[in-house]
């Protein structure tokens, strides 16, 4: 057994992961319009499993079609998708890698509504439009909230039935749970709004429902934004502070959560999540795909597209980053939460340096880290660490071009400087599309066959 704490197993109540490195939730538009996953997704996840991470937290998986963030992402809203997820789980397990499905609902933060959702407002805690893009929404009724709770429970059950290793509730980064939790967003006056206990009610009801459905023996973790910093658009309210999230984390643990995954920010993307640069040249070429998604998206497109206007958005975006590091941007917040709960705490936010992670674990800031971009840049990051490197040979530059290409292009690393040529970059992007000859032939009606 390795003496390196990074490679020491992390034991949860119902799950043991071989090391402290989790692939954080990240994906591309790999799947089918109906929500069924594809070979491409299996290829994508296996890249990281093969690279040595202890567990993969799936990308965002909607429990309902009306809760998709982006169309063409795999969902878990149907029982007949269980075999598909089972296949994916099996593929990952071959690498001694655990697979945790992130159960999610977009709420109003719906980037690409797709054919299922474009005709209606998204459900949310509020009827106020989303602040950055102007996504439209409608406050859910009590009956609709009950329906949502049940959908999450069903999603967890399907994950367990598929043989996956656990679920994570995506209660961070501005999605539906955040929309209930955040005092900067939730403007309800019923039992789901107002006091923190009320705002947390929906999340806690979901945890209770999942536990009721799948029992205590199935791993369940909750991803929370430690601090909302909801005032990215300057006139918005700031939202929850750390003390609020510590309370919520404690309540989650009480209701049966097995781990807390700490992130930051009440919308996605947020200046601090993912931390790093913002490539105007990239977003100017991809954001047009989102213009029809929100009532303020065209305004943003103009701000991105025209150099004279860029300083406006640059000021909005970069003013919150001042004085904060990229790697471990919310480390201290994770430490504060860990000090208040007994379950393991994961932290995400630009981790890439082995010694830094090691120090975070040994100093009690967190028990493990969830990484997305650095692993996209170097799928074998964990193996490089195992071989003694502290930083990979060609580290992630935190350029965020992977994120900003997402509206239009395949998920992957777009930092040309990291590749010998453009062709090499494209080749790398294309590796996940390697198909295998197991395509099924659609059935033929008997009359036609005759």
């Amino acid at each position, binding site marked *: 057994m390795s003496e390196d704490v990074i490679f020491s197993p992390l034991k949860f109540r119902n799950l043991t992961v071989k090391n402290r490195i989790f692939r954080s939730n990240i994906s591309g538009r790999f799947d089918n319009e109906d929500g069924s996953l594809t070979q491409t997704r299996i290829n994508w996840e296996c890249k990281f499993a093969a690279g040595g991470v202890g567990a993969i937290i799936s990308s965002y998986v909607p429990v309902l079609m009306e809760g998709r963030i982006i169309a063409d992402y795999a969902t878990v809203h149907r029982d007949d998708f269980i075999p598909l997820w089972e296949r994916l789980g099996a593929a990952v397990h071959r690498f001694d890698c655990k697979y945790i499905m992130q159960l999610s609902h977009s709420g109003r933060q719906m980037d690409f509504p797709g054919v299922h959702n*474009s*005709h*209606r407002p998204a459900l949310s805690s509020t009827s106020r439009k989303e602040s950055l893009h102007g996504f*439209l929404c409608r406050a859910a009724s009590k009956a609709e909230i009950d329906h949502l709770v049940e959908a999450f429970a069903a999603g967890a059950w399907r994950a367990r039935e598929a043989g996956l290793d656990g679920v994570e509730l995506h209660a961070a980064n501005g999605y539906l749970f955040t929309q209930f939790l955040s005092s900067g967003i939730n403007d309800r006056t019923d039992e789901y709004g107002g006091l923190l206990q009320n705002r947390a009610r929906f999340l806690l009801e979901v945890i209770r429902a999942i536990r009721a459905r799948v029992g205590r023996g199935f791993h369940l973790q909750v991803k929370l934004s430690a601090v909302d910093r909801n005032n990215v658009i300057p006139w918005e309210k700031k939202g929850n502070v750390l003390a609020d999230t510590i309370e919520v984390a404690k309540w989650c643990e009480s209701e049966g959560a097995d781990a807390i995954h700490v992130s930051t920010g009440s919308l996605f993307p947020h200046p601090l999540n993912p931390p790093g640069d913002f490539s105007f040249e990239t977003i100017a070429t991809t954001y047009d795909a989102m213009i029809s998604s929100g*009532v303020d998206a065209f305004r943003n497109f103009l701000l991105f597209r025209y150099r004279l206007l860029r300083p406006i958005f640059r000021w909005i975006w970069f003013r919150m980053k001042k004085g904060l590091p990229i790697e471990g941007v919310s480390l201290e917040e994770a430490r504060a939460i860990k000090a208040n709960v007994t379950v393991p705490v994961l932290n995400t936010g630009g981790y890439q340096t082995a010694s830094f992670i090691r120090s975070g674990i040994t100093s009690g800031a967190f028990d493990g880290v969830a990484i997305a971009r650095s692993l996209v840049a170097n799928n074998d990051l964990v193996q490089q660490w195992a071989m003694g490197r502290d930083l990979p040979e060609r580290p992630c530059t935190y350029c965020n071009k992977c994120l900003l290409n997402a509206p239009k292009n395949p998920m992957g690393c777009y930092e040309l400087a990291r590749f010998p040529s453009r062709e090499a970059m494209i080749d790398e992007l294309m590796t996940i599309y390697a198909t295998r000859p197991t395509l099924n032939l659609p059935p033929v009606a008997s009359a036609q066959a005759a």
Partner: protein
Amino acid sequence: MTAEPPVTYVETQLRRRRRLLLPVAIVLALLALIGLVVVVLGLVAVMRLAVNRPQVFPDIVAHFEHGSIGADQSSGIPFWVWQALPRLFPAEFDGRLDYRAFGFLYNTDAHGRQESLPIGISKRDFQGVDLVWFNCAVCHTGTYRTSEGAARVMVPGMPSNNLNLYGFIRFILDAGVDERLKPDRLIPAMQAAGANLGIIDRQVWRFVVIPRMREGFIERRSRLQPFLAEQQPWGPGRVDTFNPYKLVQMDMLLGAIAPDERHGASDFPSIFNQKPREGMQLHWDGNNSSLDERNLSAALGAGVTPETVDHAAIKRVKEWVGELHPPRSPHQVDPAAAERGRAIYMNACAVCHGYQGPDRYVFEGAKLGTVEANSTLGTDPGRLDSYTEAFRQRQLAELFAGTPFQFKHFVKTNGYANMPLDALWLRGPYLHNGSVPTLRDLLAPPAERPSAFVRGIDIVDGKNGGFLSPSCTPGRRPPQGFCYDTRLPGNGNGGHTFGTTLPATEKEDLIAYLLTF
């Protein structure tokens, strides 16, 4: 055609938002349009208001006659009003469409056509309106004829012996309150005179230019009219230099001017040969020894203000008149008599006045250019008394104070300056107030000098010196010219009795010599 329904919820909401915001957008667009129009009009107005462009004349004589010294900007009237006035007030202009009725002189162009503006009037485009008013030449350009039928010769630099400045100023002030200057009558008259005014220009003239002009007239009239009404008409070739100056430049009220100060009317001086005069006591009463200050003071009289005065333009005139020589006397005299007269003159007169040499005037004489106490001279004190120590103090404090142009050389004197007598043949009538018509009369005892005579005839008098000046009866208008009455305040013809006791033959010789000046 029915609009196609929106495909997405976002489009539905955007369409609703557009529908709700349409009235606001229309209002904003209208406001933006109005704002744009206002900005454009504002820019046009600013560009127009920024215009301050005098006419520039490379030729020095043209500059003297029509170049601006800044009076047009501060005191001027619009060119098209100037052109319209003869049409509106035909009686005052003797039915002519020019200003000859007031003694203004005109040049003719290469085709023999009379120029539109008389000599001594400059023109400046100020804030989009052409303004016209006086320059130096208005008071310092005269004419002479050698006989009744001879051609009239115009002489830049000689006193403006034709100009009826008093009559002109009174006319302008009265016109300001005359209903004929209401826009409804003035604008058509301007158009009849050739003004081409568009719709906007007509409104600008109706509501801005003409009301402002009339206000200016009324204000100036309220200052000057009581004074002018009290004074007798000055007659052609004369001006009261300092009293209008007190009323207009100093904003003094008539009551603040003592009764014995109020009769300062004097002859326009000639302005030949100015350079040799530097350092002499200038002005009739010798109250300033600086040519520059004398010039600047005269410019104020013409209508400039400390803010509008064009020092460079005045300097250009100064340099030119510094060496401007008068035309030679055309009088034919007996050389022997003139030679005898010269001896008399050199013995008795040259010390005060310098003398005429064979080719040029000689500015030498122990007392030349100094002030002779009026207790000795005994000429009319009106001009002397019109300049006071109190006024000097105000000049010092209020005009160009703190600038290099401050009036530091003015003094209050007790008499009149001994003038050089260059171009004497063009300077009649004589003495500072023009009260003695000819040189011969000046050599006569005061009691024998004409008590009333005609001024304004420009035929030189080859026998007596000066211009033909027939006697006249005060109160009766002579067939031509103006009847000057020496018995009126300021018009007295006494004093300067030098030479009056010479024997008749010596007087003839002296006159023969003086006719060569």
